[in-house]
């Protein structure tokens, strides 16, 4: 048995999926082929809002090779609609379609080409309805309603300071969340200065390189679903509900997932696959093209109005925010995004008086939902840009203004919630030093190309709301171990990191531990892989399961050898009892003699509920995103180039440093996309750039000349050995740091991103002749 010289935790252990992924042997959902498997394709509405008068599918259904056509006429479900928060999304359209791309029907055929041909033979008679595309249109008096009747939805249960307001008339408001403390009106009246701005962020596409896909097999009683999903257990729950079967008759298996970023939380292809397989009694694969993935789910467009009361000496005394999340045609997790954005909107600053209203609003556009950052990038863009406006107005260095108002470690973000668990000021000082904050480059190229630097400091409450997780660790007869957990491997490296935790706890070399496939029939329950929660929430469950297994091994050895448990130690992969050193295998044999047996260790972790905390559950930890950017702006063209970027976040404890760095760098690129390139563009409700030809993703050439990631290990996290979650913080500071750098360079405040050349150029033109750019 190899002796572990250095701690496995903190090592860059090679990812356990390495061999599979670099050789192409790794199985993803689209690689799964079952005997008799059919292919499902979807008919989508060309119109943004229309009543369906008639659907005729007979011609399609009679085509050779077509085994079923699914429409509202033959939907074999107990409940036709699903949703994470509101059950508002029909599996196939019922009385109307609500966005261009909405699912109308589906075909299962022996070949994809046949299924696609059959779609063309389905006749749909639409009666076009007036539509709304923007929040303004949607909230106008007399606006057409995207959803006429209220749907079944979860009742939020907030704590102190947060409320959920119901609007009297039926409107397109899906949720109105409010958070308040102190007296904003009074403090605004008493402030020396008031600053107010509105910021706009577009919708964005997750673009996981693996589009949505699932395979469903039905044996007459039980469903087995293979899915590229982030949330296998909530998926099981929703599929059970809509099909009317018990939870134990739905089995969700998750192979490798080719990127999620929030796009794969909840039902996407699975309800269609389930319905089709029920109709035909054969396995059905439903895979969306990349273009369909664009039209399935997105990051919702947002508008954030922020107003601050500031004293002469730069102290922030009040902040009022009003933000609108354009959730599109169906709610998904949009209401939770609005809630979280609302709670995060005032930023990591000491402000006694806060009032935030966050609205989740329906329109006839692509449905929005969870997206890396979950509402935090939107409000961080607003409050960190806004801070620089205040700094400029007070003629104060933006770094100094942040230092003056930032929460210190241990100070309250909101009374009752977890205090700030890391030193934001120290982090900000680090990035400022790394970008050489005091130094400024003079202009180049005859003065029309200017350089500037900008900072940003943002946080999000990490770990999810009310998350809970179970885990299981088995020690088998030969002393090897199996680890079971429901966190999905979608690139973040969670399977490797959690294996490292078990390796440490059992003192086993990593090769002696195997992570079981994620299969809801065998894997214990988990709430979902999101909110940067796996390392902390599942990490705790796994830690406890490993310790439980170790404890049972100790008591097994103790009873077999007739000694007290205190005399038994687990060390270097062996069991040590006084002078005797036994392998795990020998202990198991001693106890169970010739019969093979196993030890089953279990762990459970749940975030506690608290009535004192605005969202009703304590924030497990604070995920931070601090950044500094240096840009170059060409005033002739409006082109913004990111020259240098420094990112800082806090891992608490890095279980696998290489993976932590990879997650932070990936998160920063999402921020670069948000700040400079990515934008869903609509014309009359039609998404005109649903492919990566016209939707610009960051690429290799967009890497700044200098790109540095710093990861703090302040050990303040709730996960194993002080670990926190990671993976979203890196996104938060990028767009505001870039925009602050642009302001530093050319004195123009950009309040709408991405900073496409033409947008910046127009803002430059509007700002001429010299006028106070606060008014633009």
């Amino acid at each position, binding site marked *: 048995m190899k002796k572990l010289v250095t701690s496995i935790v903190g090592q860059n252990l090679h990812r356990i999926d390495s061999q599979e992924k670099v050789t192409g042997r790794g*199985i993803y959902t689209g690689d799964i082929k079952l005997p008799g498997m059919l292919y499902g394709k979807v008919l989508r509405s060309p119109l943004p809002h229309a009543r369906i008068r008639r659907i005729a599918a007979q011609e399609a259904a009679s085509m050779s090779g077509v085994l079923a056509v699914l429409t509202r006429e033959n939907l074999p479900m107990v409940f036709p609609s699903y949703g994470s928060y509101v059950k508002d999304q029909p599996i196939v359209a019922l009385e109307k379609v609500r966005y261009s791309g909405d699912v109308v029907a589906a075909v299962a055929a022996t070949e994809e*080409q046949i299924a696609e041909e059959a779609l063309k033979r389905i006749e749909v008679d639409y009666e076009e309805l007036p539509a709304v595309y923007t929040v303004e249109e949607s909230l106008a008096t007399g606006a057409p309603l995207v959803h006429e009747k209220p749907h079944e939805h979860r009742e939020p249960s907030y704590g102190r300071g947060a409320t959920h307001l119901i609007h009297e008339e039926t409107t397109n408001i899906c949720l109105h969340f409010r958070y308040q403390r102190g007296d904003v009106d009074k403090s605004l009246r008493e402030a020396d200065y008031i600053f107010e701005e509105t910021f706009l962020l577009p919708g964005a596409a997750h673009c*996981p390189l693996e589009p949505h896909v699932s395979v469903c097999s039905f044996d007459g009683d039980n469903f087995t679903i293979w899915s590229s999903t982030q949330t296998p257990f909530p998926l099981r729950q929703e599929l059970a509900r809509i099909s009317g079967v018990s939870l134990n008759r739905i089995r969700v298996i998750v192979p490798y997932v080719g990127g999620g970023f929030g796009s794969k939380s909840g039902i996407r292809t699975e309800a269609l696959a389930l319905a089709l397989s029920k109709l035909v009694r054969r396995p059905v694969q439903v895979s969306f093209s*990349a273009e369909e993935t664009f039209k399935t789910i997105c990051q919702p467009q947002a508008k954030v109005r922020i107003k601050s009361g500031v004293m002469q000496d730069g102290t922030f005394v009040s902040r009022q925010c009003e933000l609108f999340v354009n959730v599109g045609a169906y709610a998904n997790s949009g209401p939770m995004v609005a809630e979280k954005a609302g709670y995060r909107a005032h930023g990591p600053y000491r402000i006694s008086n806060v009032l935030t209203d966050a609205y989740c609003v329906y329109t006839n556009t692509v449905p929005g939902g969870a997206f890396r950052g979950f509402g935090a990038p939107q409000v961080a863009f607003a409050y960190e840009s806004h801070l620089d406006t205040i700094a400029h107005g007070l003629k104060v260095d933006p770094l100094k203004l942040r230092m003056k108002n930032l929460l210190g470690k241990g100070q309250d973000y909101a009374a009752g919630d977890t205090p700030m668990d890391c030193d934001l000021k120290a982090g900000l000082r680090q990035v400022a030093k790394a970008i050489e904050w005091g130094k400024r480059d003079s202009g180049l190229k005859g003065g029309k190309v200017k350089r500037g630097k900008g900072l940003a400091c943002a946080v999000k409450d990490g770990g999810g709301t009310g998350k809970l997780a179970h885990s299981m660790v088995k020690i088998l007869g030969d002393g090897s171990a199996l680890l079971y957990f429901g966190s999905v491997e979608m690139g973040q490296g969670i399977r490797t990191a959690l294996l490292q935790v078990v390796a440490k706890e059992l003192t086993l070399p990593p090769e002696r531990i195997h992570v079981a496939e994620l299969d809801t029939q065998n894997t214990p329950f988990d709430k979902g892989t999101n909110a940067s929660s796996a390392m902390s929430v599942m990490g705790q469950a796994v830690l406890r399961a490993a310790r439980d297994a170790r404890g049972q091994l100790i008591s097994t050895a103790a009873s077999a050898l007739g000694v007290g448990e205190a005399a038994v130690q687990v060390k270097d992969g062996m069991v040590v009892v006084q002078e005797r050193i036994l392998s795990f295998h020998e202990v198991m044999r001693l106890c169970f003699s010739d019969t093979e047996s196993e030890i089953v260790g279990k762990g459970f972790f749940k975030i506690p509920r608290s009535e004192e905390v605005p969202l009703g559950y304590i924030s497990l930890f604070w995920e931070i995103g601090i950044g500094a950017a240096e840009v170059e702006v060409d005033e002739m063209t409006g082109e913004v180039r990111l020259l240098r970027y420094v990112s800082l976040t806090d891992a608490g404890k890095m279980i696998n440093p290489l993976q932590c760095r990879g997650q932070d760098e990936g998160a920063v*690129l999402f921020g670069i996309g948000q700040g400079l390139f990515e934008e869903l563009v609509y014309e009359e409700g039609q998404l005109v750039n649903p492919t990566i030809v016209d939707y610009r993703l960051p690429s290799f050439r967009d*890497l700044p000349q200098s790109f540095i990631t710093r990861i703090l290990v302040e050990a303040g996290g709730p996960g194993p050995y002080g670990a926190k979650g990671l993976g979203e913080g890196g996104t938060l500071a990028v767009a505001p740091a870039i925009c602050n750098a642009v302001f530093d360079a050319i004195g123009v405040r950009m309040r709408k991103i991405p900073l496409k050349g033409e947008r910046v150029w127009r803002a430059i033109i509007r700002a001429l002749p010299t006028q106070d750019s606060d008014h633009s």
Partner: protein
Amino acid sequence: MSREGLTHDSMIAVHFRLNGQECHEIVTPNELLIDFIRNRLGLAGTKRSCDIEVCGVCTVLLNGKAVSSCSMFAFEVNGKELLTIEGLAKRDKLHPIQSSFIEFGGFQCGFCTPGMILLAKALLDENPNPTREEIQEYMDANICRCTGYQMIVESILDAVGKM
């Protein structure tokens, strides 16, 4: 692959080298290379993503040159050498690029990885000692959504030293 209307005459015979071995197959005229690889040859390592020749996820090497298999016809392999990701490692021995990607975090979800590694091989076969800028410019043909690119560049720089 719809077989409606196909006759014996419309099928095309292709003779080529697949991952170093002689291969003889029959393809339909409009069969895409990616479908030929994944379905007929049963090699699932080549993945489908954008399907419109932009992302490079479906990259394979044809006569050593990186091509998007989603936008080529199967018959185009005739008389050529096709290298898919399955052909890179020799039994248990990984290609240096593959082991560098493991060591330096050149992948996360792994979906772009087969195409990315093959593109890197094409680069290093053409230019065995590229600068960081040359790597960025060449690899710009492929998209990654997970890594943030920098660690892919470092993986390739490491592979340079080993090849």
